[in-house]
């Protein structure tokens, strides 16, 4: 069953089974955390637009601890070009540069 959630700006986002299979095949640590990916879209800490690809929407949510992954990690979720389907998702431990232009929450 695909996961369909709404982000804080009202945008409906779909995580298809095919996409989830791709995510867990390349990022096996994500397997138990499909709900965290959906939560990152529903209740992110920030929504960004990419620097090199300004049409790319990125969701970021911070977790102080994720069992089996680590402490103080963020989930990043990237949407595809259609701004509707999830393209990929993974955990990051550190970000060298800004993720792009913050579009939510607006300052």
């Amino acid at each position: 069953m695909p996961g369909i959630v709404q982000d804080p700006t009202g945008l409906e986002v779909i995580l298809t089974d095919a996409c989830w299979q791709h995510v867990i095949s390349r990022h096996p640590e994500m397997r138990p955390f499909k709900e965290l990916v959906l939560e990152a879209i529903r209740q992110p800490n920030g929504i960004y637009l990419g620097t090199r690809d300004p049409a790319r929407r990125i969701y970021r949510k911070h977790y102080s601890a994720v069992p089996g992954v680590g402490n103080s990690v963020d989930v990043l979720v990237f949407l595809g070009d259609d701004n509707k389907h999830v393209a990929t998702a993974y955990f990051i431990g550190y970000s060298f540069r800004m993720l792009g232009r913050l579009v939510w929450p607006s300052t």
Partner: protein
Amino acid sequence: MAFNLVQRFEFESVDYSYDRSGDVLDISFGPPVPGVALQVEDWLAIRMHVAPPYFQGMTIVGFRKIFEKINRYVEKELPKRMQKLARTSVEMSFSYDDQSDTLIIRWTEELSGWRRLAEKLFQQRRTKPSIFETLSSHPGDSLRNVYVEKTLPSKQIVGVKILEFTKVGPAAIEGILGAMIDTIFEPRAEHDENAHLITNTLIENLDWTRLARLIAS
């Protein structure tokens, strides 16, 4: 505390997957294993295996869209480029000395498989003389403590040295990566020659010849 960590990247075991619908390229050295990413820019992540720590691969989000601006055949040429990558291996060493608070990173490109054997049989390895130059000529920026090691006389970059590593290390690494990315995507901007050289070294290893020409222009 002092340490010397050596990792050989055997690109023979390079494994990649390109998801056309999401435009996401995942590259791993060996089969994908659980890890955590370091986000270099919003489109580029380096994947690390946590225990023991080693470089596991990378993820490029928007691969076709970003790189088609540089090479319109980038998607079509992907299998060929990965095949070429599989013929090389790179040995990287990370040495830290607490007395001088200095981190030295060195890399050596080697051929894989029968090519490496042929090189060992027919060519003698010699240590080449090298010099260190500052990465940035601007005294105020985060790269002021970063020096690049170049062989003589070819001036090929073979390493990087970071002074006062505990104080400026993260900012220096961020500065190096930032300078490389800016060199690729903002070729008209003013960048230091050494930032160009580091970027070119990596690009040449991956055979991004078209990209290198763009940077040189």
